[in-house]
């Protein structure tokens, strides 16, 4: 190893650190340690002058290792690594000791806190001595993408990518594009026709050469890593003629747009869905509207139509969440039924009217004016449906404990529409496994950050958009699809991807092929080479979690930047001071 020359900087963070920790005492204590060339205390290390000081010292004193005792590495490790780079030395020859979050902020005894700060700083110094210069990897980014699911989300993402000039494989399991939207008539709140929204897109997709559309298809295997995935697309054309095709494609990124399925209304037994012929779901009503006749099973025009909200949503037994589109869709139905048959009476039975989107409140106001009877029910006190008697002039009666009036109200109905909520598709777990992403307890795919990374996932190169993430309406779905495409386009335009230099490596001279590690990697970064009979880590997929390092009984896997000797040196550094303090 080259001659080690360490520079140590103790930050006071204004008074954040200095009010408890005696920075000068830390300086004095560590300055005599082997290889420490220089120790400085400073008010704000992360400030420009602080960084400049490090850069200057590296050049002036030929320092080749830097320790900054300051805040959490989460806060400023990047800042100081950048300073090392600027000074022309490898950015990994750096270590931070956290004497703020782990010390000054959590202790109130100055003497103890200073001793602990000394221990942490000493540990960092002993560790940094053993740091290696590490280089990050750079891998090619394949510009072709894979979009799974041909609903409005998938089509939008595919077109966005294709319009930028890149090839896309669009894989849809059905024999047609459009997803759930293809089952909808007009869309709330502006009453655009869903068919119009879809047709333009479907036509374009079919005419663009570099969109490779695979209908009746599923992705059966995805291997590799960001920029370099391989996918197998299994196509079954027609269920009976057995015409199957397996295509293997190379892609750089994946957008998962597998959407949702509707809640099965028969699970709420006392709504009688499946038993009472004129209790139907929202999708069945959409179908009637598309076919141009809203009528009962007996072929009569319903005089009384009741719409019940939150079927399967916002309930204790089924789904706790709101499905977000049903309230406005219900208002849309009130409008559509009224325009089909001006004489009909419509009652709308809801929990709360969720009208949060753009134009929704306005839409609600207009619908209220259109003589719809609104009845509010308590979340877990559902309306009760029963068959009407021979003397009633309606088919069914609905009993509602109306919340606003506090009264129990009975209303007539010939047709009851259940606003079924959205839920994760039954094969969503299979899809999650295929692309290596996680699901929440309801089955929705999990984004890498709910606020700041809504379309990225914890697997690099896998994006999620639309209702497979959570229930949402068309504008939100489209926005996510475009966002995912934009993220991918940004990556493609960079051409290469940088892989962090901190990853794990298998030493083939030590790996015995015991295969203990093979199934443990949470990021599927470990491959077993059947021919060579040993395992190896795909650096670009490794997130340096260390699971495999701990599992390898032969010590064949080394975590770069977290080697045993580095960690032990750090522990020794801590322990020495504890000893000295006794």
């Amino acid at each position, binding site marked *: 190893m080259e001659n080690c020359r360490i520079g140590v900087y103790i930050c006071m963070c204004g008074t954040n650190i200095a009010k408890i920790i005696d920075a000068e005492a830390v300086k004095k204590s560590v300055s005599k340690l082997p290889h420490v060339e220089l120790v400085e205390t400073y008010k704000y290390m992360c400030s420009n002058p602080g960084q400049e000081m490090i850069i200057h010292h590296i050049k002036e004193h030929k320092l080749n290792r830097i320790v900054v005792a300051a805040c959490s590495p989460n806060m400023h490790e990047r800042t100081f690594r950048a300073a090392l780079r600027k000074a022309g030395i490898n950015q990994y020859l750096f270590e931070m000791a956290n004497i703020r979050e782990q010390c000054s902020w959590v202790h109130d005894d100055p003497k103890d806190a200073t001793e602990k700060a000394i221990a942490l700083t000493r540990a960092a110094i002993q560790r940094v001595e053993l740091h290696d210069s590490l280089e990050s990897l750079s891998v090619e980014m394949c510009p072709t993408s894979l979009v799974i699911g041909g609903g409005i989300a998938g089509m939008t993402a595919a077109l966005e990518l294709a319009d930028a000039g890149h090839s896309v494989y669009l894989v849809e399991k059905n024999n047609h594009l459009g997803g759930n939207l293809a089952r909808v008539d007009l869309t709330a709140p502006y009453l655009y026709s869903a068919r119009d929204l879809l047709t333009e897109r479907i036509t374009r997709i079919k005419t663009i050469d570099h969109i490779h559309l695979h209908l009746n298809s599923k992705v059966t295997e995805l291997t590799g890593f960001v920029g370099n995935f391989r996918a197998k697309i299994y196509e079954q054309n027609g269920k009976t003629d057995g015409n199957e095709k397996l295509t293997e494609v190379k892609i750089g990124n994946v957008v998962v747009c597998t959407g949702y399925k509707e809640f099965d209304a028969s699970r709420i037994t006392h709504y009688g869905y499946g038993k009472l012929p004129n209790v139907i779901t929202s999708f069945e009503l959409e179908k009637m509207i598309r076919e141009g006749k809203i009528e009962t099973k007996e072929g009569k025009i319903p005089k009384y139509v009741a719409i019940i909200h939150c079927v399967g949503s916002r309930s204790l037994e089924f789904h706790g969440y709101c499905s977000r589109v049903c309230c406005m869709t219900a208002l849309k139905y009130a409008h559509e039924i009224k325009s089909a048959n001006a004489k009909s009476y419509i009652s709308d039975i809801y929990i709360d009217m969720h009208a949060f989107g753009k134009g929704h409140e306005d839409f609600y106001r207009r619908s209220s004016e259109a003589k719809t009877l609104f009845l509010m029910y308590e979340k877990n006190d559902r309306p009760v449906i029963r068959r009407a008697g021979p003397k009633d002039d309606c088919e069914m009666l609905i009993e509602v404990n109306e919340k606003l009036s506090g009264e129990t109200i009975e209303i007539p109905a010939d047709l009851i529409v259940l606003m079924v909520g959205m839920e994760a598709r039954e094969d969503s777990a299979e899809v999650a496994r295929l692309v290596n992403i996680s699901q929440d307890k309801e089955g929705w795919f999990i984004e890498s950050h709910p606020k700041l990374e809504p379309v990225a996932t914890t697997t690099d190169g896998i994006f999620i958009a639309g209702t497979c993430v959570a229930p949402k309406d068309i504008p939100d779905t489209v926005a996510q699809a475009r966002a995912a495409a934009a993220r991918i386009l940004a990556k493609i335009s960079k051409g290469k991807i940088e892989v962090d230099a901190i990853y794990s490596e298998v030493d083939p*001279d*030590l*790996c*015995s*092929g*015991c*295969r*203990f590690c*093979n*199934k*443990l990697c949470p990021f599927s970064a470990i491959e*077993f080479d059947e021919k060579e*009979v040993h395992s190896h880590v795909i650096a670009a997929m490794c997130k340096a979690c260390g*699971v495999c390092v*701990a*599992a*390898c*009984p*032969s*010590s*064949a896997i080394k975590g770069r930047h977290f080697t*045993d*000797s580095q960690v032990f040196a750090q522990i020794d550094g801590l322990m020495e001071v504890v000893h000295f303090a006794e």
Partner: protein
Amino acid sequence: MEKTKPKIKLAVYWAAACGGCCVSVLDVHEKLFEVVASADLVFWPIALDIKYSDVEEMADGSIDVTLFNGAIRNSENEHMAKLLRQKSRILVAYGSCSHLGGIPGLANFSNKEEIFKRVYEECESTVNRDKIRPQPENKVPEGILELPVFYNDVRPLDRVVEVDYYLPGCPPQTERLVEVFMAIVTGAHLPHKGSVIGAGSKAQCEECARKKTENKQIKKFYRPWEIIDDGITCFMEQGILCMGPATRLGCGHRCIAGNAPCRGCYGPVSDDSDPGTKMMSAISSIIDAKEPDDIEKVLEDLVDTAGTFYRFSLPSSMIRRKMI
């Protein structure tokens, strides 16, 4: 081999050991003639009547090779280790006890007081009303009788003196001994000082003939007698704990070939690793249970955890011993 070539001087010594290693030297069978043809045995308490004082009189460095088996348990072991180091050109830690501490090293889970109490007072077959214990010095009319001092700790050889090579095994595979010996005799290129010799560089699994797959998840552990081994599948995949993945190759798969899981006598794979800790860490990684109670249930089937994982390596491991 040229007849004119001077014979090399060879010593074999036992410290805290069972005697098996010395016997293993004899196991070279007719190859012993080859050994004797090129070596003079200058000291070997099990076979030759040569006194310690004879060794003391030898010139420093005059023994070419000493095979030192057994751990350091008492002052006599320590004295002989130091003496033989001084007299030998090449000192080989021969066998698990000398290499890692071995089976006697499991005594580090207790201490001198506990051992003496058990052995000289509590043991079912002992009658010792006066609770007499061995004393380092004992005055008798004829003079002072001396016994070695019994230490609290068992140590591997390299904690006491510098070791040139390690030949692992309980006992070492005899063929390996002959190979190493002939290499020394012929002056073939020897590995760097401090190396493990006569063994492979990877773990047992590398050459184990049993079928291994990625399905290493363990739901239940079985002791070998609790299950009918299929003779084909990796022991671990059948729930039988096998130390093979953390144990160096070289024994010729004595145990595994005999349908018994590896016990770990050849020691760690690479120089810096601690096989007991490594194996515990590995096992914890593959237990197929999520809830603490379920994990506990799986672990209950592991009998004598410390003795299983540290069977041969406790004194040289990170934990080294029970706290005194």
